[in-house]
Every structure is written in structure tokens, then in C-alpha cells.
């Protein structure tokens, strides 16, 4: 089961990113499901799992974009590691904490990504960071918190129903 879980995560990510991210786009701003899943799992599983999962997801993205091979792997690895560290120091169940962490992580991720992607050209980096990364970070954080609240609500209801059935 433990071995199947990471593969399932990667498949879910592939599905969400490939088919839903484009449908949910507002203009050119879309949620980053890769980052969402990575952050969500890293804060619960820790920096080691986060960095390995980040590398896996990043490499998968890179395989679709051979012109920047390794760039997503690098940024997602760093994201997974530092999110894992942050998760152990905060309150992962708090919606506010998750919102802030997702927003900050998305911005930090794009900061590194865009700087390398644009060959350290600060003008191009700044335009892309402000016009794409900033709204994307907010969108990703909002989607993350909504999913978190839904999952928490569903889990609470399931536990309550099981309790009722037993009593």
C-alpha cells in the first residue's frame, strides 16, 4: 500500500493538471495542482517525503517540456523540502495556515523558476511574476483551502456516521 500511494498521487496529479487546470483557468491564471498536492502531502509527511515527491512531480513535468529539463525537478524538490520543514513547525489543520503556506510557497517556487527560466533577466522575470505568479498563487491557495475544508468535512461526517452505526 505504501508503495502504491506515491504512484496514485502522481496519477491524480497528472489527471488534475492535464484536464482540470485548463478548464479552471481565469484568463491566463490557473491553479497549480502539482504544487497543491506537493504542499499538502509535504506538510503531513515531512521534508524527506516532500523533496522526493517534489523531484518526482517536477521530473514528470519536465518530461513534457524537454527544453527546460530539470528546472521543475529542482524547484519542486526545494518546495517539497522547505514545505515539509514548515509543516512540522505550524498547524497543518488550520485553513489560515494552509492558505498562507500555499500562497508563500507558490510565490517562492515561481521566483526561483522564473529567474532561471528567463536566464536571470530581471525585467521579464518581474512581469511574469507579477502578472502570472501572484494571481496564480492566490488562486492555488483558495482552491487548496476549499479542497481542505471539503476533505475535512467529509472525513468528520464519515467518522460521525460510523460512530452512529456502531452505537
Amino acid at each position, binding site marked *: 500500500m505504501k508503495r502504491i500511494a506515491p504512484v496514485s498521487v502522481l496519477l491524480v496529479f*497528472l489527471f488534475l493538471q492535464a484536464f482540470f487546470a485548463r478548464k479552471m483557468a481565469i484568463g491566463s491564471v490557473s491553479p497549480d495542482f502539482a504544487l497543491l498536492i506537493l504542499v499538502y502531502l509535504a506538510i503531513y509527511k515531512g521534508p524527506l517525503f516532500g523533496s522526493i515527491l517534489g523531484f518526482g512531480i517536477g521530473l514528470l513535468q519536465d518530461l513534457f517540456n524537454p527544453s527546460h529539463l530539470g528546472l521543475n525537478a529542482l524547484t519542486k524538490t526545494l518546495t517539497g523540502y522547505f514545505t515539509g520543514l514548515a509543516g512540522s513547525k505550524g498547524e497543518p489543520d488550520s485553513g489560515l495556515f494552509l492558505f498562507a503556506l500555499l500562497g508563500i510557497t507558490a510565490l517562492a517556487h515561481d521566483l526561483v523558476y522564473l529567474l532561471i527560466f528567463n536566464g536571470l533577466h530581471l525585467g521579464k522575470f518581474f512581469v511574469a511574476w507579477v502578472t502570472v505568479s501572484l494571481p496564480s498563487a492566490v488562486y492555488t491557495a483558495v482552491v487548496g483551502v476549499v479542497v481542505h475544508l471539503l476533505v475535512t468535512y467529509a472525513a468528520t461526517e464519515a467518522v460521525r456516521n460510523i460512530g452512529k452505526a456502531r452505537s
Partner: protein
Amino acid sequence: MPLFELLFRRHRDKTVLAVLVVLSLTLMLIPEPANLAMARGLLNTVMYPANRVTQFFEDFVSVRGENRELKKQVASLLLERERLNQFRVERERLRRLAEFKEEQFLDLRPAEVIGRNLDRFQTMLVIDKGRADSIKVRMPVLSYKGYVGRIAEVFDNSAWVQLICSRNSPVSCIDKRSRVVGILEWSHFSYFEMKNVSIVDDVQVGDTLITSGFGGVVPKGYPVGVVSGVAKQMDGLGLKVTAVSEVNFRSLEEVFVIIDEIPWDKAIYFDQPDSVIIRDLIGEDL
């Protein structure tokens, strides 16, 4: 052993992080090794059926409206074709008089976009035509609104298109009005910069930029953008020309791969009656 103990017991997290970072940096530095090409082939094979299924349902929803729209377009194009045929006869006669090189038409292979690269800064498309359809690496790809990129990698039933909205895909272009030549490089979104333009060159806002055909890969004359801004560069020697592409790279659904150039009098439908064209295109008479 103490080193092993230190690295893999006490600082396991940091060691793994360092290894993965070094691995990522190595991937960024090496020029696309063969094993990764194989991995990409595998990934493409895995994603191909999933993409096809999604595409089928999307097509199912949109096909009725699209069909109605296409019929209108066919009717309009038939009238246009009739007018162009008259021009052709006249033009052919003038060409022979002037002993111009025989004009070439393009053998276009229509392809559907079945996938995109998975990050938000999109530079690649996956199309549903591959080696089996005579697609080859470096073949140019067009959309209805102009040049969009070229084939980067080919698989049996699919191929990757490297879009021009990428730092790695500069295009040689010409100002359609003043014939000023420059290199078009992607900036952000649908915005581009035309490089190598001198201060004395005549480039104005609203000018259309077309492919130059230099280098022989990209055919000449396809629109790549419209000039949206012209300003003097800081050094006072050149112009900073910005252009915007009319192609929405995020919502491309159909593209055309240029397979070959064929003499224009051998192009499909050239001498066929309208009824045959209608039957082939929409499967019924108008």
C-alpha cells in the same frame, strides 16, 4: 562508516535534498540524453490513450456547433475560391511572361492538439499525428492565424510541438509593409520582441510581421504578430520593437504541420468540381 552514519542517519533529509538538487542541476546542464528521450516516449505512450478519451468527449460536445459553423465557412470559401480561380489564370499568364519561379503550395497535415506540457508556463503541445503520418522533427506548424512553432520530437502516433512562445524558439521575421528584417523572440504571454532592428529602420505600430523564410525551415510569408510598440533603445542605436501574436497559444485546438511543398497546380481540389469538395469536407451536399 562515520561519514555514512553522518550523512544517511543523522542528516538523511539534507543528504537526500542535496542529491536531488545536484541531480536536477545535472539534468539542466546535459543536452537531452538518450535515456530521457526513451522516458519521454514512455510517458507519451501512457498519456496518449487518456488524452484521446478526453478529446473524444470534448469533441462530442462541440461537434454540432462546429459543424454548423463549418458549413457556413465552406459556402463562403467556395465563393472565394471561384474568385481566386479567375485571378489564378491571370496570374499564371503574367508569371510565365516574367519567367518567375513556379509558385509552391504547401502540403498541410491537419492535427488535433491532444495535450499540453504540464506547467503553467506553456511552451509545448502534443498533437495526434506522428511518425505514421510522415511527421518529422523540425517541420513547421501553423494555425489558422499564422506560424505557431515547429516539431520538436516525434513518436509513432503523436508529436511534440515547440511553440514560438518559448525562449528557445526565435523566428526570423520581416515587417510586411517596410520589409525590415529582425529576429522575433518571445517575451511573455502572447507578447514578443523584435530584435536587431536599427534606429533608422521603418517599423510602425500596427505593422504585420511575417516569417522571412530565411534558413529554409519556416516557410516565408506567415504572420507571426502585429507590432504593438516601438521605442528607442537605451543605447540609442536600435529600436525596441514589441509585437503581439494573434494566436492564443493557450487555447490552440487544431494546427497544421507542413509536410512538404507541392506545385500549386497539383494541390488537392484544384480542378475538382465544387460538389466533390463539399462531399469530402462535410459529407453532404449544401
